[in-house]
């Protein structure tokens, strides 16, 4: 296909797509309790899917069939869940003990507004005043055991033990950047919604909006099995640790750089990406002159870790939108990086053919 045709078929990211991302970012869907995001996805897609089901774990599996017979079965996965908290004890007087769900640095907790439970009851994570802390204490992070969620004295019946809580951050934009909680991985969810709305014509698109990624890729494992794809792309967000070092030395451990385009994975803690799919992405990026980068090989992982070992193996690759400050109350991602990620994977899917699987790996 020609460059222009490829471009024209890719979904465009405009105001209504950013508005959808904003709603997804503000929605409250801690691992195991993804209902709020599931609801938005279903509203967006229920009328256009060829097949749509919610599986035993709560994944949404959507199929858009190609008009071509025997089209390549391509899975695209994006996890719906976010890191957050579960209320584990009612201490009385509106104070609640909580546990962290997923990986959150406990230095990110103190002094944050939160939302608790299905009714989104506002609360705060307070801290002992600096005036009452001694010098040694100030050097140590405050452990989760010593923090409480405080919804205010009075009616503590509004919150039940077992409910989830999350940061109360509201999405906003400033200059080239989008700010919000849970952009890891609502960026992926918003991307996948666009793919289902504008599927590449040459493939059977098998979209998996997965659950429980943050606590061990649980949803992706069964979604990968059920959809039984021939190849899989995973869309996620990965940390841009591209800040200056304290001593002005060059930062060699940036993971990915913000503004440098979609990040293609070769190696993470769970997956060696399929080199043929990497090549497809790189060739597509170069053909369309889309900026891209390789994520620095290292720790961390995506749903690909659970998908690629399904059945007799599913060639997989992950692509992430760079985002600063993952797993905190506020993430920052560049709109251009998102647009480029949406375009790159879509164009690569338009170009994919089954013969890629018979090429040498």
């Amino acid at each position, binding site marked *: 296909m020609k460059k222009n045709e490829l471009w024209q078929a890719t979904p465009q990211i405009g105001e209504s797509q950013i508005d959808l991302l904003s709603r997804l970012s503000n929605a409250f869907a801690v691992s195991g309790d993804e209902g709020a995001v599931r609801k938005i996805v279903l509203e967006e897609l229920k009328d256009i899917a060829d097949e749509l089901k919610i599986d035993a774990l709560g994944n949404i599996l959507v199929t858009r069939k190609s008009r071509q017979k025997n089209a390549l079965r391509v899975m695209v996965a994006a996890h719906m869940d976010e890191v957050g908290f579960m209320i584990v004890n009612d201490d009385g007087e*509106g*104070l609640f003990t909580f546990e962290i769900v997923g990986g959150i640095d406990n*230095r*990110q907790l*103190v*002094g*944050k*507004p939160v939302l608790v439970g299905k009714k989104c*009851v*506002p*609360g*705060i*994570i*307070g*801290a*002992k*005043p*600096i*005036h*009452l*802390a001694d010098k040694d204490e*100030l*050097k*140590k*992070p*405050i452990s989760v055991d*010593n*923090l*409480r969620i*405080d*919804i*205010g*004295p*009075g*009616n*503590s019946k*509004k919150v039940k033990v077992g409910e989830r809580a999350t940061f*109360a*951050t509201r999405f*906003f934009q*400033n*200059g*080239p*950047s*989008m*700010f919000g909680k849970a952009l890891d991985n609502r960026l992926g969810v918003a991307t996948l919604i666009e793919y289902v709305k504008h599927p590449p014509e040459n493939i059977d698109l098998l979209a998996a909006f997965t659950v429980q990624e943050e606590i061990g890729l649980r949803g992706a494992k069964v979604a990968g099995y059920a959809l039984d794809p021939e190849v899989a792309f995973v869309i996620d967000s990965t940390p841009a*640790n591209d*800040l*200056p*070092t*304290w*001593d002005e030395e060059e*930062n060699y*451990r940036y993971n990915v750089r913000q503004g440098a385009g979609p990040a293609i994975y070769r190696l993470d803690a769970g997956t060696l990406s399929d080199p043929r799919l990497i090549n497809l992405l790189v060739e597509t990026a170069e053909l369309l002159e889309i900026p891209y980068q390789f994520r620095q090989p290292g720790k961390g992982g995506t749903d690909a870790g659970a998908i690629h070992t399904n059945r007799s193996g599913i060639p997989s690759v992950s692509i992430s939108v760079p985002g*600063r*400050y993952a797993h*905190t*109350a*506020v993430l*920052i991602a560049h709109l251009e990086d998102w647009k480029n990620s949406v375009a790159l994977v879509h164009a690569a899917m338009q170009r994919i053919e089954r013969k890629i699987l018979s090429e040498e790996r």
Partner: protein
Amino acid sequence: MIELKETLKSMISLPGLSGYEKPIRDLITTAWEPLVDEISTSRLGSLHALRRGNGDLPRPAILLAAHMDAIGMIVTAIKDGLLRFTGIGGIDPRILPGQLVTVHGRSDMPGVIVQPADYLLPASQQRCSIAMEYLFVDTGLMADEVNQLVRVGDLISFSQEPMELSGNTLAGHSLDNRASVAAVTQCLLELSHVQHAWDVWAVATVQEEETLAGSITSPYEIKPQIAVAIDVTFAKGPGASDWRTLSLAKGPCLGWGPNIHPYIYKRFADTAEKLDIPCQKEYMPRHSGTDAYGMQVVGEGIPTMVISIPLRYMHTPVELIAMKDIERTGRLLAETIARLELDFLDTISWDEVDDEEK
């Protein structure tokens, strides 16, 4: 008292860092103007508002000081579009990562305080609480734009919006000490319905969080016969339960210690008892940590009092306060002032004070 809550919400939606109090001063001026006879700004920026009494001249005056300045941050360096900063006032760096702020550059812009990954920090800062000098503010703007809009010395304020929580409580930044400004506002409102012999000077002081400069200079100019500092104190809560902490929503806290004149204390305590206004006693063995510390030694010395409103999570952007405590503080001030006899000062005696447990 819905209006008072709304007034306070607008007061904690504004900056007004120590030394740069104009935004909050303008709002307080609007709130106080209808309730007072004269209003002016001191040389250092404190707001002086006089509500005249109806006693014969020369009339004694009581000064109510509530500091209006807030803690915040100030830009120290700019690197790759990211801002280094230091604190104005006492800030625990542990509460900073992930906080939303407003950077007051050539124009205001949103930002977030961020903590670099451990491996970008010196070994001393890894896996422990990170000193303020290693944190950044990220505005999301490109480096070129940041260099044009922001300069070293620009202010950074917390931008946490007010949150109404259960039990008629309010959370947000700068409730230390805008809650007390609201209590003084309530006092002025109540005084407008009653007779009072004494002149009342409502003063919103500046720079309490840094130098107490307002508390030293305003009483010098006004020369009151009694000065009361209204401030916040530590409410019991997670991590705070020792003798220095008081109960949230259990009434204003009357200070007791060297920074407080025992006879003035007694007058407030007696009024509270007579009117059944719940209140608590706060022991302040040394420095009260309030404007009273500055005011007590102005000129030839001034009899001072401290009334505090219990507040959880002091010096975080989610300070928590009970509206009831603010209303009761305003009422206790007004009722005590309305009962001050013109010759009250002549009755002051050091011997008669009986420190009964309340």
